[in-house]
């Protein structure tokens, strides 16, 4: 913290003034990061508990109820308190203003409010641990089961989701307004770094999607305590309404978890391949396509939930269509590597082998699930668990890891340890495949998700997954240890150690000063002007700005 705070010419007054009252987007971003990393630790602990229970078909490490609480807590934390706040809150806040050449966000105080609401929302969820009623309803909280759920745990859960939703909406508005209005001279939309594009699309998704989630959980709360009958079938209610509302938010939410990650990939690949990003516009506009289509596929989570099978067909079609912009991106990234001069660094390994290699698997299993006839068998099995972990863990998480290492020198002014970073990458990569690949087969063979008991013939595959999860656990600790060590002992970083061309590297010191830039930068091209022109001349690394 000490080193983080020592940002150049900022006069250090007190911790309280410096951090608690700050409206600086960089500090808010750092607070988002630290807070969500702490939450991630608890989410990971829950995951390890789950996998430990599943090491044998019927061990009793956890009581049934504790097991159910563990997967509820795991899912909720990872989605609402780790991936989303890390990508939008931490990376978005730190990078967007500085990447578009602004001093800060459009509404700095509202930005601070978003962070404090996020922290509050997280704490409210954790309160349920202490009132002794951890919710056990899964992260989806389907009624009528969730309405019967005893104790105040679920009420805290609902309150927490509300607060977090408010935080997301405020942040989304802030990002949209900032990106629209605060761009520096010459920073046209088509020159914006792809991370900024990604963040913009994500913000629109948050803005339009979150209210549906708020509606879903509000009706739960009303049914639980105020005598309404949204989901009471005896009184004419219908539990499927909840699922429609929930997935109308939560399918787009999976894109909230992946589009910014794709943005990070698009930033890091060109830098270490020393090539311009291939198909800038294709990548930017396919994000928009994904953002739009993302609102039209929600019922693919409900193919067997009580709709007619044929009602699933339109949603199958949209789910197939949405795979097209996704594959466009994959091929553009591959083409970016082609003919490059690739340097193997920790962030580069994470985005190339990590993100591209693993996310592809999740995309392909998504297509299988999107086909109604296959989903009849695969829905609610471990195959689904494999699918979404390949996209969220193999995709979003590897991008987060890559981003943490990539921007670490910028944020802290220190370099991390490259060798250990790469060792941890390999452990992470192997652990991920060990954990999640067997789950495809476990699911196909007949193991549903959210169970603590399975048939003994699936023991070996489950044990491989459990061992993999321990490997991931160790790898995550190594990764964090590397960064923590570097904060105190790392080498001093120069302004632009990677030779990158976005404004935070070309025009701001490491770490940046309070207002980011000494002089407002002026932009004359997109930020990926790498590569050898035909005449053999190399572009200047600072070629972006005048």
């Amino acid at each position, binding site marked *: 913290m000490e080193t983080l705070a020592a940002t150049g010419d900022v006069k250090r007054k007190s911790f309280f003034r410096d951090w608690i009252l700050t409206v600086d987007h960089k500090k808010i971003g750092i607070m988002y990061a630290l807070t969500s990393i702490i939450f991630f630790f608890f989410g990971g602990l829950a995951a390890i508990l789950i996998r430990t229970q599943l090491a044998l078909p019927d061990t009793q490490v956890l009581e049934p109820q504790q097991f159910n609480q563990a997967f509820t807590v795991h899912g909720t934390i990872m989605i609402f308190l780790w991936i989303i706040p890390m990508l939008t809150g931490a990376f978005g806040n730190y990078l967007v203003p500085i990447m578009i050449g602004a001093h800060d966000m459009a509404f700095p105080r509202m930005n601070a409010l978003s962070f404090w609401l996020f922290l509050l929302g997280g704490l409210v969820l954790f309160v349920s641990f202490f009132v002794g009623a951890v919710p056990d*309803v899964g992260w989806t909280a389907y009624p009528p089961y969730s309405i019967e759920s005893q104790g105040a745990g679920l009420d805290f859960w609902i309150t927490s989701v509300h607060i977090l939703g408010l935080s997301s909406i405020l942040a989304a508005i802030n990002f949209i307004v900032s990106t629209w209005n605060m761009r520096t001279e010459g920073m046209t939309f088509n020159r914006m770094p792809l991370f900024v594009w990604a963040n913009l699309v994500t913000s629109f998704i948050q803005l339009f999607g979150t209210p549906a989630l708020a509606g879903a959980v509000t009706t739960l709360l009303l049914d639980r305590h105020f005598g309404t009958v949204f989901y009471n079938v005896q009184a004419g209610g219908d539990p499927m309404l909840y699922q429609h509302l929930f997935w109308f938010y939560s399918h787009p939410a999976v894109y909230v978890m992946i589009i910014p990650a794709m943005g990070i990939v698009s930033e890091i690949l060109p830098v270490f391949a020393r090539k311009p990003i291939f198909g800038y516009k294709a990548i930017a506009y396919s994000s928009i396509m994904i953002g739009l289509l993302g609102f039209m596929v929600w019922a693919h989570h409900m193919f067997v939930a009580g709709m007619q099978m044929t009602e699933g067909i339109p949603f199958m079609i949209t789910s197939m269509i949405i795979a097209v912009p996704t594959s466009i991106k994959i091929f553009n990234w591959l083409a970016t590597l082609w003919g490059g001069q690739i340097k193997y660094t920790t962030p580069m390994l994470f985005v190339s082998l990590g993100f591209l290699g693993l996310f592809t698997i999740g995309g392909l299993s998504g297509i*299988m699930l999107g086909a109604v006839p296959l989903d009849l068998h695969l829905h609610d099995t471990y195959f689904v668990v494999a699918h979404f972990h390949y996209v969220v863990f193999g995709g979003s998480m590897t991008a987060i890891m890559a981003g943490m290492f990539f921007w670490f020198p910028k944020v802290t002014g220190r370099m991390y340890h490259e060798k250990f970073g790469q060792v941890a990458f390999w452990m992470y990569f192997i652990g991920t495949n060990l954990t999640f690949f067997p789950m495809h087969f476990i699911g196909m063979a007949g193991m549903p998700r959210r169970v603590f008991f399975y048939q003994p013939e699936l023991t070996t595959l489950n044990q491989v997954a459990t061992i993999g999860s321990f490997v991931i656990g160790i790898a995550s600790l190594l990764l964090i240890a590397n960064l923590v060590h570097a904060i105190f002992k790392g080498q001093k970083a120069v302004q632009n150690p990677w030779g990158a061309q976005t404004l935070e590297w070309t025009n701001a010191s490491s770490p940046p000063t309070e207002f980011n830039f000494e002089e407002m930068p002026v932009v004359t091209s997109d930020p990926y002007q790498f590569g050898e022109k035909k005449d053999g001349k190399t572009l200047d690394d600072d070629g972006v700005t005048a």
Partner: protein
Amino acid sequence: MSSAAQKEISQIGGGQVGLSNFYLPEALTGTAKDIDGLFGMIVWIALVMFILVEALLVIFLIRYKRKHPDKHGKAIDGNTKAEVIWTLIPALILVFIGIYSTSMVYTIQEPPENVYEIKVTGMKWAWEFEYPNGAKSFNDLRIPEGENVLFKIYSKDVIHSFWIPEFRIKQDAVPGRETRFWVNADQLSGGENKYEKRVICAEYCGNQHSLMLADLQIMPAKEFTAWVDAELTRPKTDAQYVVQANGCTSCHTIDGGKSAGPTWKGLFGKKQIVNGQEVTVDEKYLEEAIVQPDAKTPEGYSTGMMPAFQMEPEAIKNVVEYIKSLQ
């Protein structure tokens, strides 16, 4: 490993479970075989795409590794032709998958004429099956071989999901709604016709969700008819039936595990504190606990949890004997 477990293993997929069929269990219906066909097709397409992407990735990473620290790559920032190709080809493949799947959905959905209807009801945490003649079975699904069977699926409480992996189909049991699917099943290979714990609840439904399992038997039509008829007239006082029909095991376990109520394992003969006094659980105690549960609530449990059951004396006697046997 017990021999029972061993037997179960050999049953999965008729002894063929493994990578060769992607670990899918044996397909027992025509629909299941069609679905496997589609599955195979999509898997192969996915495998080709997978190998293409991963191979290019690895080749590029190795081939273009930077040898000189200052070198740059080629300054190529796009190519419209390439973009069109890698937009159109995946799009066409996906259209193909979409059309193929769509036609299949209609065949899966439409039941043929002359179906034999079985009412399936999910409840916390058991399955009830009701046959056309009114006979009911609990956690024991039997269907006639080679006949069209239509499952009409209901729920008594929360959402469950009725899944039989060998049929490749599940449908949620949603309160207030009827869902359905139909099958025409062959026997399991290897002459076995009983399949333990293969009717699975796939939608999370609370504490004992993992154990909401029923057995499946696919019987030759004649045997099946005889069984349903006998089932209807059989006096329903045997312990298994009474316990299932009244849903006792949704709160009591028989294996010592914890649940909402005390486990039955080792209950008989146990000493426990009731209303501040130590008593030994005997036949009389158990009888009273069933008929008038709130009269004596053991320490650690609250009154009002368990309903009072009206049962024939014969039924009560059998249940008590059953609990006695769980030592």
